[in-house]
């Protein structure tokens, strides 16, 4: 594999390979040496058509820790240019000799489009495409769950994970559903019916509208961010009613199993989908997700870029 576009493209072996590699990266990151020569001489471009400081910083830290040269290219505000900019920008980066493009874009499928075009020959890593996927987020989530509930090895068989909130617009949810299934976990989606996509009944998940009924069953709960703009689009009556039924608050914490995890891809709307008490509770691994994000992204960069150009990528 030359690109990482979707967790749906990963095989079981590939997913485990990424997580195992990330474990090594995490081990090294804990040591005194913060910089490895692994990707010296490689050029990695952070091509962000959409603002996401945390994702960009995470990829940048991962690339720099492996000694790659990083170019940050913010192409924001190009929605008016009707998308030609993706082609033009990619060709520019190609001319600059980019070995990999980390692409964040508001259009679903943008990463796949770039990977299948002739605009660039480098690897394409999807850092979030519209409401489609965000594969490294799912990988870091799986890594975090595995570390806490499976001793850092093996798959996630026997675990139940709830994804709660705006499934309809969530790229994090889509990537997680594929990957959690691949690793053997059971997934329950919890949201008001308006935020579950039509057609989701054919996904390999269970669907529930009742968070209180689901919480006692789960080993981990992923709370999704509720975007402000959903409020004005009739997806739910009021923020207050949403929080009342789907917010993770202290009463609901009590429904959860003792060792279960609270996760959030960030940034959080404290008080809306999650209360401060839940976010900061002992079960919360939200900050650790951020740390693990760097290790997982180091692993992805290593596996996609470290080998000889024509032989690299045999591992994933």
């Amino acid at each position, binding site marked *: 594999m030359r690109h990482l576009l979707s967790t749906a493209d990963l095989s079981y072996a590939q997913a485990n390979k990424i997580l*195992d590699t990330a*474990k090594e990266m995490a081990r090294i990151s804990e040591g005194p040496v913060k910089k490895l020569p692994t990707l010296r001489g490689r050029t990695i471009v952070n091509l962000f058509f959409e603002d996401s400081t945390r994702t960009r910083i995470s990829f940048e830290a991962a690339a720099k820790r492996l000694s790659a040269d990083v170019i940050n290219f913010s192409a924001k505000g190009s929605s008016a240019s009707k998308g030609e900019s993706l082609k033009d920008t990619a060709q520019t980066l190609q001319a600059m000799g980019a070995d990999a493009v980390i692409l964040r874009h508001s259009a679903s499928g943008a990463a796949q489009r770039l990977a299948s075009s002739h605009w660039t020959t480098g690897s394409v890593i999807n850092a979030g495409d519209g409401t489609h996927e965000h594969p490294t987020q799912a990988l870091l989530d799986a890594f975090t769950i595995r570390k806490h509930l499976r001793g850092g090895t093996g798959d996630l068989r026997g675990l139940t994970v709830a994804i709660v909130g705006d499934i309809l617009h969530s790229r994090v949810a889509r990537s997680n559903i594929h990957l959690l299934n691949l690793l053997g976990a059971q997934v329950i989606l919890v949201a008001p019916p308006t935020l579950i996509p039509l057609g989701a009944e054919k996904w390999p998940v269970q669907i529930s509208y009742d968070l209180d009924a689901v919480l006692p069953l789960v080993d981990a709960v992923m709370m999704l961010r509720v975007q402000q703009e959903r409020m004005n689009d009739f997806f739910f009556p009021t923020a207050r009613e949403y929080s009342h039924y789907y917010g993770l608050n202290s009463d609901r914490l009590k429904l959860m199993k003792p060792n279960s995890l609270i996760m959030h891809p960030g940034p959080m709307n404290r008080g809306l989908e999650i209360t401060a008490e839940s976010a900061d509770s002992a079960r919360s691994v939200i900050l650790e997700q951020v740390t693990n994000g760097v290790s997982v992204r180091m692993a992805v960069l290593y596996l996609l870029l470290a080998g000889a150009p024509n*032989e690299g990528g045999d591992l994933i």
Partner: protein
Amino acid sequence: MSVALSAVDISRALTRIAHEILERNGGPDSIVLMGIPTRGAFLASRLANSIASIEGREVRVGTLDITLHRDDLRLRPLRALVPTMTPLGGIEGRNVILVDDVLFSGRTIRAALDALGEIGRPKSVQLAALVDRGHRELPIRADYVGKNLPTSKAQSVKVHLSEIDGVDEVLVETTEG
């Protein structure tokens, strides 16, 4: 293609190296053997067994994956990472003996020294290699050598170990062109 070391030769060489290590370090207690995967790791555990049977005491042994510390990854096929395993007690203040199968340019060992640096600060670092085939590109030499094998650059040295290859032997091949 010719056999440079037979199974018996390899066994004899390792036993000799085990004795040399013990002699130089005054016994097994200060020692940590760190094998460099893949075959260096098997050699390290064989050395550990050998020392244990000589001394009647266990010796600390671990593995050190150096892949991420290489600066020539672009020139070779991608390899999977092997977990680095440090023995209980770590390497702090110990005499670490790096174990590899073939000593060639010295770049692997340079990377190993970097990799070691992130685990701790040993008292000394020594190097044991089953075969030294020359052609060093860095100021690195082995403290313990199974066999010096003068080769041309056109030749390649293949170490086979029963743990992974089913047989113990060292072959020298002359590649055409």
